[in-house]
């Protein structure tokens, strides 16, 4: 199992009024699954994503990522897990605007401590894989939205993560570019990556093989998607 979550609770304290964002959520995701997490705002979707992404520890419950218990880890240990096991793709791309495309992509490798020569090779390969090898020296503001998102995907992949976590990856893109990104994700899934997609658009969620719907901090439904039915058929 890639993800094994049991009774995850997340509580935010707001002026002594406690808000439970997640109430005993249990979830497991196997290797090479393609899961969409859906739900209206306030459903706990973002909170769940932050916990899955090791950006935020749960208040209680256990979470193991590839057999490693991450629910009790300290901040720097979590940083290491994020660096080596999770690739993030954000709605707003979150590239460093001052640095060129190549440097953005090699950044996770720098934090891992990879040598310059290896870094160059891996980053170039990743950029080639997303079709941006000729844009290496450009800075993010010089690129289109779709290109930026592809840079972000290349950055997410350089450390060969166990899990690709995409948070509304097409939210800031037009529909044509959006579907390009979605088919890129499909390809990555076909290559063996485990993907969790957070979205509120049913159309995007259909790319996944399993759809988890959240409401008021609990899992409302967990179903196989029609895409899977179609593909397996």
């Amino acid at each position: 199992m890639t993800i094994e979550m049991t009774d995850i609770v997340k509580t935010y304290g707001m002026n002594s009024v406690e808000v439970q964002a997640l109430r005993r959520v249990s979830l497991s995701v196997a290797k090479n699954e393609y899961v969409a997490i859906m739900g209206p705002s306030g459903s706990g979707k973002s909170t769940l994503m932050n916990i899955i992404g090791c950006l935020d520890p749960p208040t209680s419950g256990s979470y193991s990522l590839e057999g490693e218990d991450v629910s009790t880890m300290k901040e720097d240990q979590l940083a290491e897990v994020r660096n080596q096991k999770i690739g993030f793709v954000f709605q707003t791309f979150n590239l460093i605007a001052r640095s060129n495309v190549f440097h953005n992509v090699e950044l996770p490798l720098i934090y891992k401590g990879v040598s310059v020569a290896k870094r160059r090779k891996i980053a170039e390969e990743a950029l080639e894989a997303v079709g941006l090898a000729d844009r290496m020296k450009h800075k993010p503001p010089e690129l289109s939205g779709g290109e930026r998102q592809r840079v972000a995907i290349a950055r997410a992949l350089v450390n060969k993560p166990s899990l690709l976590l995409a948070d509304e990856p097409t939210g800031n893109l037009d529909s044509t570019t959006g579907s390009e990104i979605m088919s890129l994700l499909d390809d990555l899934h076909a290559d063996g990556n485990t993907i969790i997609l957070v979205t509120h658009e049913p159309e995007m969620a259909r790319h996944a093989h399993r759809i988890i719907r959240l409401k008021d901090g609990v899992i409302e439904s967990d179903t196989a998607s029609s895409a899977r039915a179609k593909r397996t058929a």
Partner: protein
Amino acid sequence: MKSLRQVLESLRIGFDSLRANKARGVLTALGIIIGIVAVITTMTAANGLSNNFKESVSALGSDVLYVSRMPWIVTGNFFEFRNRPNLTLEEAELLARRMRSARAVNPTINTSKSIKYRSEVIENVEILGTTDQQMLVASAVPEIGRFLTRFDIRFNKSVCVIGSTVRERLFENVDPLNKTMKIGRRRFRVVGVMEKQGSAAFFGGPDFDSQVFVPITSFVKAFGGSHRDINVAVKAPSQASLADFEFELIGEMRKIRKLRPSDRDNFSINQMDSLVGMFNSVMGVVVTIGLVITTISLFVGGIGVMNIMYVSVTERTKEIGIRKAIGAKRRAILAQFLFESMAICAFGGLVGLAGAFGVTALIDRLVMPATISPGIATLAVVISMGIGVLFGFLPAWKASRLNPIEALRYE
């Protein structure tokens, strides 16, 4: 290896963000630049003063005791010293005869006169009546011609030896030897020119290069001597016996003055050490005050750095969030911002150093010999980097502690 690579990377990132904000970085560094220029200049000036002083003092020799009416450094009741009798030429001669172990006994007497050669006049030149023994108690020797001889002293010769500054000003393009110049209203023939010694005039001390030496006997004849105070320089046989020698000297002076055991000395024994001691303590105070003031200016510069680093951290909250999300540990973020502030300060330090070299060159040309020592230069750069660490730490710490989720959400 791995951590070195991360350090280098943090360094690069720090420099990168500086390049993005050049004007701001330079303005911030300006505070450090001014502080460093102030600190180095203060230290260099102090060093220069000290060296100058020591040089001119060493010309006088440390194994020489000076007998005079007044102590060089007056402490206590000034009027008690004022009522002491003058030292006379007769007393000096008696002392010379009795101090058999002395290597030299040289009485001197001085006044200030205008001197004249043809149409050139210099006012207020120190005229020193002295003897051939001068050569034994002071280190300077004539550059051209000769010094005063025993013969000159014995027969009241109207000859003089001039300092190098006097020569430059009075005999600009003329060979001064055997020329007759006027001291006051008297004529003296120039027989020698002293080598250049450097001046302690900056401290109100004697300017050896502006002196004119004449035989003490001719001095008394020409300008009068009975009402003047004589100083006697007495050179000890060796540095080691200086204390015993001083004791002997006091004893002989008391005998000459016919003092009873209950009387206090009515003369003073001076030596260079006391002057050096006083100079050092005065310099110490001046340097301390200077350093306190200049350190405050560095501190203000440091506050400027801290301020701009806080701005930088706030501006880049989102970037910090991104870096953390993709795996930057706290210390990587800390290092990134620390290096940035260190880079600003190191830049300030180096530019400040360059500026200080300029100011020092100016001092060297206009005021006194001064050079920046390698030690001070290194210290300046180290101090400025230290300021970078000191004042960059809090902002960098704040950056490293940011919550990744909140930082990512920041717009």
